[in-house]
């Protein structure tokens, strides 16, 4: 007989989970306790073991799909018709029945009173809704907050909410991707930043010729130590020098408290593109790390981020962020500040461009640098001074030794 396995409430009061990975496919035989599927809720990511022995008939939902608690996750042929029913726990069967039973079409006709918690009853009262008119979708047919909100959206003609929520039908030629996980967080964060912080962006061009030479000569020694040396650690060093000289750039605004908080530590956020979306990993105490330390740390963190294994600790506490499009390049950009920081720098492709030097046109390694600032804290003049100070270190990397 087919056993329907419903997603249990694996946290306390969890309402849904995201399918991370299926460990079984239809047709596969499983023993009791064999791993079925990995599910991520807002509390934890857990492996769900099979409650029964049998053959998988069907798995419901793709990896990345959202399943409601109580919804059928998979069906299992347990091969046993009579005994199975007898040994099924009474509570489980009755629960399955109640949640599978469609809510009655019309409550008022039957005259039955709706079940609901006092808080929901009060809410219905406040909304001017007769709760007995509402079809409950909660446990045992209880009217939930969501039922009321759904009901409130209907026209005033006391139309009963349909049993199943109408499927949102995508327009022809449009593919719908649900907004969730990292994508959703990025969306919220960006809106918050653009909303709270009045941005302005400042772009300058940097002559990287000397730094290119320095990096090329250091690359080999670094490689011998197993370190992949990019330009980023040098740029980080220059930024730290700038932040020390202009402490306002390493701050955040406590609007409620009416204070600017100057940070006395230098934790640099570095944007990393991952398959799920942009992740900012944090290099702690960048001021106390050498160029090679920084290189190793960035390497370790970005690798962890790409494999989705980065520790929470390494995603928190940045005071200033660098976003690098690296060789992808572009000329310049208008980066969005990693709120509540007050500044961000975008660094672009280094390429040879003709410039006039001492009256001669020569080929030099040039790079654009785009900085966005929060004007509430950083005025244009301060932003420009910061940029030109950082630029000085990049154009004359010997100065970086002063920082070592």
């Amino acid at each position, binding site marked *: 007989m087919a056993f329907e396995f419903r997603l249990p409430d694996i946290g306390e009061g969890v309402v849904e989970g995201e399918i991370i990975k299926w460990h079984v496919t239809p047709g596969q035989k499983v023993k009791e306790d064999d791993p079925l599927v990995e599910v991520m809720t807002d509390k*934890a990511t*857990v492996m769900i*073991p099979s409650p029964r022995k049998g053959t998988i008939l069907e798995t419901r939902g793709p990896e990345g799909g959202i399943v409601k608690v109580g919804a059928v996750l998979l069906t299992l042929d347990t091969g046993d018709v009579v005994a199975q029913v007898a040994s099924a726990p009474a509570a489980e069967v009755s629960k399955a029945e109640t949640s599978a039973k469609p809510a009655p079409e019309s409550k008022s006709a039957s005259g039955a009173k709706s079940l609901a918690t006092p808080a929901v009853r009060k809410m219905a009262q406040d909304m001017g809704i007769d709760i007995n008119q509402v079809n409950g979708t909660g446990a045992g047919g209880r009217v939930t907050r969501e039922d009321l909100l759904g009901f409130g959206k209907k026209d005033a003609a006391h139309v009963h909410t349909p049993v199943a929520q109408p499927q949102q039908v995508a327009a022809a030629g449009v593919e719908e991707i649900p907004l969730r996980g990292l994508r959703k967080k990025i969306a919220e964060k960006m809106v918050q930043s653009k909303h709270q912080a009045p941005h302005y962006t400042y772009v300058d061009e940097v002559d990287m010729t000397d730094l290119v030479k320095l990096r090329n000569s250091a690359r080999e020694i670094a490689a011998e130590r197993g370190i992949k040396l990019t330009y980023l650690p040098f740029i980080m060093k220059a930024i730290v020098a700038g932040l020390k000289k202009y402490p306002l750039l390493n701050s955040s605004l406590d609007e409620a408290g009416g204070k600017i908080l100057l940070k006395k530590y230098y934790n640099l956020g570095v944007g990393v593109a991952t398959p799920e979306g942009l992740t900012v990993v944090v290099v702690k105490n960048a001021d106390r790390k050498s160029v090679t330390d920084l290189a190793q740390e960035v390497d370790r963190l970005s690798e962890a981020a790409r494999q989705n294994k980065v520790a929470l600790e390494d995603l928190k506490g940045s005071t200033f962020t660098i976003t690098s499009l690296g060789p992808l390049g572009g000329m310049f950009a208008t980066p969005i500040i990693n709120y509540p920081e007050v500044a961000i720098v975008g660094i672009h492709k280094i390429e040879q461009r003709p410039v006039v030097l001492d009256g001669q046109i020569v080929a030099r390694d040039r790079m654009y640098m785009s900085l966005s600032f929060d004007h509430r804290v950083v005025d244009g003049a301060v932003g420009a001074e910061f940029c030109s100070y950082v630029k000085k270190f990049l154009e004359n990397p010997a100065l970086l030794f002063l920082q070592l």
Partner: protein
Amino acid sequence: MLETLNKPAVTKSLEKSDLIRLYTEMLRLRLLDQRMLTLQRQGRVGFYGTATGEEAAVIGSAYALDSDDWIFPALRQGGAALMRGYPLVEYISQCMGNSRDGTKGRQMPSHYCYRPANFVSWSSCIATQIPHAVGAAWAMKIQGHKNLAVAYMGDGATSEGDFHVAMNFAGVFKVPVIFFCQNNQWSISVNIKQQTASESIAIKAIAYGFHGSVVDGNDVLAVYSAMNNAVQQVRNGSGPVLIEAVTYRMGAHSSSDDPRMYRSDEEVEEWRKRDPVNRMLKNLEGQGYWSPQEQTDLEEKLNQEILDAVAEAEKTGPPPVESLFDDVFSELLPHLKEQRDSKL
């Protein structure tokens, strides 16, 4: 002042049978926790908290108590109740909230109590049991009883006001209570380093005028010995004792928690080397008390007992609906009577 209570026990010395009993209780708890967590993931139990990694602290401490001593548990002492006679089926039924659950499905799952063993119902609220234990112990003293109370707690509880109030009262009135702190390094996601600026938890006892001791919480014999000495002291009327058992929560805080969010796998692996169940197994083997065959047989026996108890608990129906109206008022109030009669 801060003494280590690792001296050999004064009266009770442990025989081979005691050692095997201690090991058996620890292993039962380990296997039971594994099974129960699996049941939780399968939706057969609503919630569960394991004691994995802390078996020595739970079992070793409770083993030193007399049957009429009182246990005020924190959150991971279910194994102590089992050792004191709490039937396995009832333990599992409590997690299912069925009619064999002594708390009739009204407690949170994995929150046990067992009256016949003086094992008080545990509370998810942190540290509330500590003043209760002190009050109960104080009553025992006033009534001239020779028994005592143990207040179990985690490291997080020591930051609560209840802890300090209880410690102070216990010290002033010299009540027969043992404060037993299972310092498992993590209060959900808060590490012990963020919990206190003191060099240890045990040292806090000094401020309240009594003895504190630190014991290796992953060594069941050390825990037993420390507890046994404390029991002697407390029974002699010399006032309370605080024991800090340094141990480690190897699993999640509960089935709702994901420790990978806040601690490293390396740290867990480091503590796995000090696994208390494994340590006791090595001890038994080293003394020639235990063979691989005995190990296999015991595991099989315990697992079978657990499976049988789960099957039996799953066959048990929910508590009767009318029981909803019981146990609050000695005589049902009219409006409740009306509700009950209209529904039943």
